[in-house]
């Protein structure tokens, strides 16, 4: 009988996974609380804002974790490993759908995609900051855009991005600086309006 209740909130992701591997289901529940929303939004963004598909993919990835917790390598960071799996699932989906090159997000290097996917809200206010941000983001190189989104949308650290994309931290910093400065310069008008 457990006399002292474990504080799962203060435990790291790796510790929680270790606990779940030993049979502690509450530990996995804590992991799901931490990353459920992140992963769902990541899938939602990468899969053309298809909520049903995002749900299916989110359930699939967590089901894999539930049934095969041994797949996780404790020597790696759980967050980076989880997003790597999610990224690979998206790539497989692109291959399956054979529409990878036509997506607004995952386009080949050097190709500046057009902002042809617009939500109803964006169509109403095309001059809004979010719309222009989407447009400018879609004009970016895919690698630069991916680093920028992982850093500011998913909230991953430089090291986590480096692990996930298997590139050096210096490369991540370089891509991030260039993208941020470029977008800030292009969206400076909106920043002025926002400041006012």
């Amino acid at each position, binding site marked *: 009988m457990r006399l002292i209740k474990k504080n799962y909130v203060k435990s790291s992701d790796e510790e929680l996974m270790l606990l*779940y591997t*030993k*049979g*502690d*289901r509450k530990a*996995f*529940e804590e992991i*799901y609380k931490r990353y*459920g*929303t992140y992963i*769902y*939004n990541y899938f*939602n*963004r990468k899969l053309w804002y298809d*909520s049903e598909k995002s*749900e299916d993919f*989110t*359930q699939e990835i*967590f*089901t894999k974790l*539930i*049934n095969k917790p*041994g797949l996780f390598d404790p020597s790696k960071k759980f967050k980076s490993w989880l997003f790597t799996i999610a990224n690979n699932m998206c790539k497989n989906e692109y291959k399956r759908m054979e529409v990878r090159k036509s997506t607004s997000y995952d386009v080949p290097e050097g190709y500046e995609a057009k902002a042809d996917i617009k939500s109803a809200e964006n169509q109403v206010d095309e001059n809004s*900051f*979010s719309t222009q*941000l989407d447009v400018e983001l879609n004009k970016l190189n895919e690698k630069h855009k991916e680093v920028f989104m992982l*850093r*500011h*949308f998913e909230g991953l*650290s*430089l090291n986590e991005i480096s692990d996930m994309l298997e590139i050096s931290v210096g490369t991540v*910093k370089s891509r*991030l*600086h260039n993208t*941020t*400065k470029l*977008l*800030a*310069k292009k*969206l*400076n008008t*909106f*920043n002025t309006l*926002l*400041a006012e």
Partner: protein
Amino acid sequence: MMDAEQIILTKEFYQLNPSEKEAVKAYAENENDYNEIKSFLLATHQVFEAQKNELPQSLNQSVLAELYASPAEKKTWYKKLLLFLFPLDKPFYFAPSFQIGMATALVLLLFNLKPNVESGENLAIHTVEEHKSVGGHMEPEEEAPAAEVNDNIDALTSAEEVADQKISEVSEKETAKPTTTLPVDTKDKYYQQPPSISDQSLSEIGNSEMDKDEVTQTMQEDMVLEESEEIEVTIVENQKDDNSNNTAVITETYGNAEDGNKVQTSVTSTFRKSNNKKYKSAQEPAAVSEPQMERSPQYALSQTPELNGLFFTVK
């Protein structure tokens, strides 16, 4: 230590210490650039936060249901195997164990029902071998030709006795000795002939169809074949020698394997005939009990009118 983006988002330019200014130098070197980047990042974060969605409740329920439905402890491989072979939620005939067992039984049944071609071939070979081995001891089959030979010899003998007046010259000249014409009542008794032919006798052959060399060769072959143990008799033919009415001559054909070559040699043997009409080899000595005819020179040649006219002159 905070990243450059975190410093920009959390602090104002005038709050930066030298190390933080060095960290954000890649983004902004002056306060205007710094503020511009800060405004952009704040606005971007607001947009991204607005774009984020909450987890659907159905998704939460399904994931948690999956979590608490599945056993956390690992299943051992044999438990998985047993569960696969004997599923609880399927009828027995859908169970893989039942299907595998039935398939195995079917295969074994088919193999057992299939006629064994190889064993059939072996049986045929065995039959042949058995026939060979038994054949050596089957006297009736071997003796049957001999009986026929005896009959043939008898027939030939009687036929020659009828035409006894025509005696072969060769036979008489080979012996070079007068032979005795058998009486009628003792015509079935034959006597051993001399085993060799002298040069003198051969010189008397005269117009014989067989010259000296041929006769000598025939005799040498006889001797060789008698002494050799490796001779294998393949064909036996029996003939009545028409050169003499007193003897039965059987010609035997031998197959001799020498140096891998099959050599067939025909050998003529002379037999004498006893009262019981069984022939013995001419080279074997006659039994004591056998009556021997005295050889008389007056019977050296059968006197026929033709021969008398050719070879004899009336003094």
